[in-house]
């Protein structure tokens, strides 16, 4: 995988943050990890910011990577669009070590982006951000009529659901028949 730091998230701290000077507490340099999405653009993120993601936090907690090893092994999230991963990284950086506010108004308003973000955040197991996202999705239909809700969330009618179910059963039947035929061929 070709990864360069050219795509390092602008919101991510370029250098390890420094702790306030204290004679008693020796400075511990913050560790950084690297992630990339579908677009292969690598984002440098501090371990502190990544703590928001239970998935990544679980993975890195026992790795004990050096800076070089971390750089050489970015976490690949091929199923997340680059711009969505950027949003996630920005959010993690902005909320690093801070209590999360009751609301987040900076989430995308565009339906497709928001839905992509929800799926990514759910996958990365970022609980607080997921709560905001779900609230935002719920707000998309606030005060709307049933038919407007149907359109916004693309809810099929009962007839459409039944047709899809019939189609799925038909497909499953064909696949099963295909597998049986293949198995019979193998036996010969």
């Amino acid at each position, binding site marked *: 995988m070709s990864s360069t730091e050219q795509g390092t998230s602008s919101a991510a701290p370029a250098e390890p943050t420094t702790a306030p000077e204290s004679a008693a507490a020796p400075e511990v340099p913050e560790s950084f990890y690297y992630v990339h999405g579908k677009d292969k653009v690598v984002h440098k993120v501090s371990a502190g910011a990544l703590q928001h993601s239970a998935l990544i936090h679980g993975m890195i907690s026992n790795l004990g990577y050096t800076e070089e090893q971390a750089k050489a092994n970015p*976490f690949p999230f091929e199923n997340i669009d680059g711009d969505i991963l950027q949003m996630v990284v920005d959010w993690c950086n902005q909320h690093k070590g801070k209590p999360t506010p009751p609301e987040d108004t900076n989430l995308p308003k565009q339906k497709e982006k928001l*839905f992509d973000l929800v*799926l990514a955040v759910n996958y990365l197991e970022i609980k607080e951000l997921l709560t905001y996202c*779900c609230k935002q999705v*719920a707000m998309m239909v606030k005060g709307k009529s049933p038919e407007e809700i*149907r359109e916004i969330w*693309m*809810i*099929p009618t009962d007839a459409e659901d039944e047709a899809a179910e019939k189609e799925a059963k038909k497909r499953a039947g064909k696949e099963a028949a295909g597998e049986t035929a293949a198995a019979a061929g193998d036996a010969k």
Partner: protein
Amino acid sequence: MIFSFKEMDETPKSRKFGLLKFPFALREEVIRNMEFMDAFHFSTLSKRSKRLVHNAKLRTHSITFCLNTFVANDKIIVETIKDGQCVMISLADPRESFKRKNPDVIDGRKLANLINEPSDDYKKKLSAHLLFIFHFKETILHIEKGVSNVHFERNYTEPLTDFFLWDVRKTFDFVSIGWGSPLFISSEDLKFILETIKSNQYYLGKQINILLKQWINGQITDLESLIGYKRYNFPVDVILDGLVTMDPTITHEQAKKIYSRLEVNGQLMDIQRKVDGQLATVLLDEEGCSVFMWNEKRLAELGN
């Protein structure tokens, strides 16, 4: 090191997204963040969306069915959070209902029309739908006195035993009759409420007082005993209002056996039926109100 990741639960293939592309847990989390009316509207879209709202277990504080002697005042009140804002749904014909006076009241008929289910009664359809899709912490029934009628005769045709609601729900957390202003229902109706409609708590207001008066005046003859537990929530002065009381037939010691108590600490008194002089002993104590009607056989057993 090479990392391999599990696939996302549902990777969308097209750019068109819908809520149902979300994994189940996410759909439910979205539903739980919806407002009451939005969730209701969503639940009417299909069988699947109805089930989805039900499965999301959207916590809603209370639903109160207010059935009035004046049928135009029938309504459902939903309190989404405790002491929060209420949603009021009129169950009456909008031409007659109190909705005319209050624009915030939602027309129940319109809501029922959105529900795609066969039912000959829109009130039943709406009530059943609400009780199915939402998880109410408290389900309350108030049977109230309306402004137009004195006696409890719904439209002068529908007896209490025929209320639409009984086909939908017979169990409540709280049932009140005549909350606020006294409402008199027949002893048959009271018996029906106490025996058929189950509730953790009842407010019967003046019902027991009325029942005792009816017994004194000879309107009820087959009553052998009456127990009103404290959970029925009535004050002593309301029970005794207008009743002439006398010294009790029995002592506190004898009362233990009669009322099946280990100790009897409350007030004992007699009331007397006017027509034949038959006595009944009333015990008012911490447990509530217990009335024991005497007859010759019972008195003989007492051995006084």
